[in-house]
């Protein structure tokens, strides 16, 4: 088995995540889809690290995880704040922000 299969798996997961972002309206699920996309990218990084015989890819994946954690914290805080005012977690709801 060629390790590039991992890359293909990562591509598939990434696309599924993208579709999730596009079709789901619940902000939290959209958020999960974004996390899925990040995870897919991480899988690529880890695989690349192995294919190239150098650990930098793993370090990058690690940093992605850290940044994702920070992003989740803020994102969820925003969702909670929006939910408090609008009683809804629909991502279409804050469209008034365009003004």
């Amino acid at each position, binding site marked *: 088995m060629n390790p590039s299969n991992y890359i293909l798996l990562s591509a598939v997961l990434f696309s599924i995540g993208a579709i999730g972002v*596009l079709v789901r309206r619940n902000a939290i699920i959209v958020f999960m889809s974004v996390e899925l996309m990040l995870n897919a990218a991480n899988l690529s990084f880890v695989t690349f690290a192995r294919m190239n015989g150098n650990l930098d890819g793993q370090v990058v994946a690690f940093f992605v995880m850290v940044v994702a954690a920070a992003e989740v914290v803020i994102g969820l805080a925003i969702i909670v704040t929006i939910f408090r005012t609008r009683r809804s977690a629909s991502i279409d709801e804050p469209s008034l922000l365009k003004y």
Partner: protein
Amino acid sequence: MTELMPAEGVFSLIWLLIALPLAGAIVLLFGGRRTNSWGPYLGVLTVSASAVLGVLMLLGLLDRPAEERTVEQTLFTWVFVGDFQADMAFQLDQLSMVFVLLITIVGALIHVYSLGYMAHDPDRRKFFGYLNLFVAAMLLLVLANNYLLVYVGWEGVGLASFLLIGFWQAKPSAAAAAKKAFIINRVGDVGLSLAIMLMFVTFGSVSFDDVFRSTSEASEGTLTAIGLLLLLAAAGKSAQFPLQAWLLDAMEGPTPVSALIHAATMVTAGVYLIVRSNAIYNAAVWAATAVVIVGLITIFMGAIIGSAKDDIKKSLAGSTMSQIGYMIFAAGLGPIGYVFAIFHLLTHGVFKAGLFLGAGSVMHGMNDNVNMRRYGALKGLMVITFITFMAGYLAIIGIPPFSGFWSKDEIIHAAFERNAFIGIATILAAGITGFYMTRMIAMTFFGKPRWEEGVHPHESPAVMTIPLIILALGSTFMGMALLFWGNIESWLEPVTGFASEPTPLPTMFYIGVTLVVVIIGAVIGWITYGVKPVPIDPPHGSWLTRAARKDLYGDAVNDVLVVQPSLATARYLSWFDDKGIDGFVNGIARWVGLLANTLRRTQSGLVRSYALSMVGGVFVVVLALLLVRMN
């Protein structure tokens, strides 16, 4: 050209000459109300200190041989852009020295005088601040060693002049006069800035030393252009034809200002500029000729205006124009005239300052009335003012041994050496000078009192009369002192050059003719205004009188030639801006608006539709990458 000597000893303090009044100005203008009480005295002190410093430097220069009297002090490199470099550097030579002395000493006297004159003005502190600023800028102008720095001083005095003319800005006429002076000065400033640019392009430098050293490298056409531009600058600052219109209105400022700025110092900056740039004019004959013509025209314009005005200050202002015309005229004569231009400048600076301060003293006694037809018979009531004024009077019309005689006579002499026609013209102008000055004396101090009701003429306080006395002494003796004891010709010679040409007619001949003409003018004046009673309401007068009362239609000409076309252009441009440009822009905006109206449908605010566009973009990019890779 003499060698530039490094600044040592007392000359290491050249910067302090400027810094002192500048510091005074800063303290006074930014110190706020807490400096109200002691501020004016600080102003007097800084200028006086500069004067003392100037005297010390004069002594220092006298100790040196003539060719070592050019001192240069470089503080720091001020501007360096590419090839262009200008230093914050000062050059003290014989020419600057006399200016420094004139500015600081007359300035100090006028500061002292102002203590009395402005005693009751609520904005006294500001006044002294502006005065100090003016002195600093003027000193910078005359001490600079390059044209760019001159330009700074040039603008600085322009600013101070503007502020001081409009000092009583509550008066609409004062505000308008200030603006007028400022705007007309701008025209001259454009000339100076263009001249500087041209110099940089031609010589690669703007410092005096470099420019004068390399005049031979430039074509005569270029030099003529520079000379004419410098003449434009000088005309603007010195109120020469055709930019003379502002000076008469500038009399709206307080009288000490008129005395200091618009008689003794600033208006002579143009003369300084031309004399300083003598190397250029020496090489540009046509430019020099233009200078002569401008000077000659102005001599007559000023004299005629001075003869017709009833306002004592405006009459004096006309006289100033005329006298500066003399100087410019002399400067245009070439090496033979430079020295006398400066000589006349010095004597004129003193006696005209005295005359203005005397006029101020009269106004002080007459409740600030400036109409000479309301004066009369003041000689007994204002003895000191009268005597000092008489000293100035005799000096300006050129009665020996008063100082004006020596300087004016030399100019006439020089004029004859160049051309008999212009010589005769200058003598004629001297006659007119005699006429209008006699008219002024007669209307002010002699005859019957024509005072307005409630006016009680009185002598001014000592703080005003003492400067008057000092200036009167200067008016009386300075000419002789400079000529015989101070030997001004050989003093200035290293800077200006001096060509002693053979004299076709004996000197005494000119003196005699001139004196006769002057006395004829004075007698006519006396008969017209001294013997006959002066009507309180001005008579209709001849067409020339009427024209002179209107400044020889200077404003009208400006109005027709400049103001109306400008306004018309502005109106047209405004219309074009409104309809053409705005229409174009608005049209674009409308189209953009229409476009945006359709495009904004995509900006739904729905995050998911944005995300869709993003994914679409990714799709396209990946597709492009793949296609590129496949091929």
